[in-house]
């Protein structure tokens, strides 16, 4: 038997899988998932109901699931260990909220910044976004310069409360 902890949004599910059945949060579920091709399309069969489920494994145990016009991100924690939905980011770690181009950086390492001060500007698909300091503090780390292309979730700046 294998146990998986699966997080979707705030909710966590406990999924137990054996060769002959599955339990979700302790409740037996009669269902069947069959791959239809090698790209992630499956049919999820439950009772008299067949549904397209598209499952796309992404980084860090996250699965994109498309079903009935909806898209869900499910984080699968390894058997026997709970997934940490929040990740390890600390307060003051500014990460890229979207992929894009750094069009302006207004700080350098060591600068003191005010709360709400604009640290840098990101651009993606013609949309610009200002990244602001969450609280007053000092720039401890700066990983990019203007012109850099960044992925969603990349750490850009570390702000720590000033330790005068």
């Amino acid at each position, binding site marked *: 038997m*294998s146990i*998986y902890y*699966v997080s*979707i*949004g705030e*909710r966590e*599910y406990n*999924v137990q*899988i054996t*060769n*002959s*059945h*599955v339990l*979700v949060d302790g409740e037996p*579920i*009669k*269902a*069947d*998932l*069959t791959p239809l091709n090698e*790209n*992630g*399309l*499956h049919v*999820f069969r*439950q009772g*008299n109901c067949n*549904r*397209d*489920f*598209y*499952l*796309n*494994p992404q980084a860090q*145990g996250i*699965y*994109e*699931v*498309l*079903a*009935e*016009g*909806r*898209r*869900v*991100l*499910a984080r*699968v924690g390894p058997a026997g260990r709970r997934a940490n939905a929040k990740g390890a980011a600390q307060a003051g770690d500014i990460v890229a*909220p*979207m*992929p*894009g*181009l750094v069009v302006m950086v207004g700080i350098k390492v060591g600068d003191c910044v005010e709360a709400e001060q604009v640290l840098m500007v990101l*651009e*993606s*698909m*013609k*949309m610009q*976004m200002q990244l602001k300091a969450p609280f007053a503090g000092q720039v401890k780390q700066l990983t990019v310069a203007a012109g850099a292309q960044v992925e*969603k979730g990349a750490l850009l700046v570390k702000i720590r409360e000033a330790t005068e």
Partner: protein
Amino acid sequence: MKVLVANRGEIAVRILRACRDLGLPSVAVYSEADREALHTRYADEAVYLGPTPAAQSYLNIPAVLDAARRSGARAIHPGYGFLSENADFARAVEDAGLTFIGPRPETIALTGDKLAARRAARDAGLPVLPGPDTPLTEAIAADMAMQVQYPVLVKATAGGGGRGIRLARNPDELAAMVTAARKEAQAAFGDDTVYLEPLVQRARHIEVQILGDGAGRILCLGERECSIQRRRQKLIEEAPAHGLSAAQRAFLYDAAARVGRALGYRSLGTVEFLLDERGAFHFIEINPRIQVEHPVTEMITGLDLVKEQLRLAAGRPLRLVQDAVELRGAAIEARVLAEDPQAGFLPATGNIAHLKEPGGPGIRVDSALYAGMTVTADYDSLLAKVSAWGENRAGAILRLRRALREFQIGGVATDLEFLLQIVESPPFQAGNFDTTYLDKFDPPEARGKAALERDAALAAALVAHRKKSGALHRQEENAWRTIAWREQM
């Protein structure tokens, strides 16, 4: 007439399809990021423009003209966005002895200056919102701040696409909003001229499609409603606008044709109006190009607007007379965007590992998608347009809903679920909305959400389990199938 399409994405493919339908040879252009893009594979030829940033490729006028010269293209279609509203580009195309598929450069220059367009519309007898006809500075704003009716919009004369607009709610805010709008306008359009326009409350966005021969004949191809907007970006558009009276429609068409005739308008254009609560129309601007939302007009008129543009550009006269334009049924378009509603509609990127576009009766899909395509952050977020036709608005909505449910895009976040929520919302279905509808839109939790999430969790765990079990999984799967099978019998 060999046609170069100076654009990318779905609109490039749309125009190339019309070229095929007319048997015209076609040339695509592309940036480095688009070397394998569908539009390059759809055209007869594809010419490299320059590096990925639009300024060095799709906005690079010398590169586009050079591509035309090298490929022997005789006409250039600009699509929408990019160089489509750039009068200098249109002029450069004509100076190079080529045909610009769109209005005359001076028309583009005029419509690009919203104050000038407003004057032209007023001169043609159209209802225009009150407000000074002159650009605004902080100093002028300070002088007049007390005489203005609030709320009021500060708008860039060079504006477009909903940018360079600020709302001032009271005299104290006015100067700051002028400064903010000027700054954004300068950054976005290289021109910081702004002007004042009263905010029309609970307005609907209604626009009229016109087609002119450049010699004073104007065809009016019905109206569209584009009130479903998020942050001034149109998201769902329909034709016709619901609930207009025959008198309103006659007024609207007459107004659009009048300003078109006054400008000696050539090619396709859109005359945009706001419809206020009391049922009165107010001219706002003219878009001198094909619109994103043109398919809904095509579906109700039976015309192919791009083919009409190409025919006119090839020197043919207008094919139709106004009385031959018949509107049939209703059409609604939804824009499928690479934006993640679960993350504040931030742009999303990724590789489209799985793709299934909808089909069947009454559905049209315009896209440049293919399985394996990478969606980057370099250009805009429009992935596809799904349009549905029905005998009436209710029928079109049901078909659109069916199509949105059929559409599967795996590997990149999209607004498909959000579109479904809008289409399923009772006020939308009742036609009870204005341009602020989405500001307050708060859809109820979807039926069956809990069960679906549980099933998704189970499915993800099963796939993770099989991945881990590796070679074992086929065997186990077969066991699973047998069990399910047995239970069904």
